[in-house]
């Protein structure tokens, strides 16, 4: 006996997110690093900042920390985002 049933997933709401244009180089760029606020992000992002400045000659690194590591980034933290060339975000546990 054939059974007909319905799709339980969000199907039509699968948005097609498009990646931002890639940067050709990081020389002279401003890069923001957004931490989720957990303790271990500090040494990890310290190392990334050093790599960005030393190896990739990034002009400046903006370090930001979310208030709540389980919630989306607060809009006020992104108000300067138009001035940044790239954003790195990540978690630490």
């Amino acid at each position, binding site marked *: 006996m054939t*059974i007909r049933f319905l799709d*339980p*997933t969000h*199907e039509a709401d699968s948005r097609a997110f498009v990646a931002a244009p890639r940067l050709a180089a990081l020389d002279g760029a401003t890069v923001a690093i957004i931490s989720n606020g957990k303790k271990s992000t500090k040494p990890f992002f310290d190392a990334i900042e050093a790599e960005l400045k030393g190896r990739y000659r990034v002009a400046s690194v903006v370090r930001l920390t979310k208030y709540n590591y389980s919630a989306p980034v607060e809009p006020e933290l992104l108000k300067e985002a138009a001035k940044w060339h790239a954003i790195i975000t990540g978690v630490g546990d």
Partner: protein
Amino acid sequence: MNLSSKSYTADDFAAVQEFFHARKWTDGLPIVPPTEAAVRACLEWVAMAPDHLVGIEPVRERAITAEKLAINAVMAGCLPMHFPVVVAAFTAMLQEPFLLHGATASTGGCAILIVVNGPIRDETGMDGTFNALAASDRASTAIGRAVRLTLYNLLDVRPGAADRATLGHPGKISYCLAEDEANSPWLPLCEERGIPTGLSAVTVMAAGAPRQLMNEWTTRPEEILDTFVAEIRANMLNYSIWPGNYAIVLPPQLRTHFAAAGWSKADIRRYVFDHARVTRREWAACGKGSVVGDKADKVYQALPAADDLLVIAAGGPAGGFGAVIPPWFGPKSRAVTVAIGACVDCG
């Protein structure tokens, strides 16, 4: 009533199961095939159009429609009469203070505790007595599982996908109970949280696994609560020190002693609020001495306020067993209570 979900066919019941398992659309258990007829029956029971917007998950801005919720409820084993509870639970979970994304994605591995109050418990055959915290009855199990399957399929909260829990706990299969109002001397949980008398309601809480305790060696409320407080303090030291909503479950045998002494739920909350505290230095005795730092004397309380304790009457008639149900993440996620099928603040 036009349903908009894509439909599929399979040759038989077994083939339907394999179809769902192959796509990770279920939790490892078989599902009830969500046929159009079964989904329509759920929607008709709550008088909701298929595209009725139950809410929007704010992080991924994903719509939770009545149709999709009904499909997952049918899969979980819900009857139409169970569906209003599922709708109310999701309505509560989508309120901002609940922090749904964090609660379902966290390494901390909490589950959604659903506490049901009011006449709908009896109408659906929910039973808050024997085995109250696990598969006590058909409705409780199916409703809790419906919430979990909806998280799977509408928000991708599958292990290793959006669900990043290190361990999780068995409540992630289903974590729903009805308060045993008939055998309780107290106000129902929902009434204490502002729902008018006579309405049904759900309370949702991002919750860790229940920590069972036992004290059959006293009739004094203070001593009984000292056992609960000790368990809360252990949770603060071993899991998370941050204050938030805690739930405690009191069975009839213990409730008898509180009733005899004239203690209300408010009295219980006050006692626990006053006593459930630890100092940071106590971390040193459980292997966390490295984070005591220079705040050894700082006092941490389990509850931001006495009203943050959810006191639930549930359990079988014999046994001095209770449970502490700890919060996932202190004050960042708050328990939310909403009425079922009624708006209590619409003016």
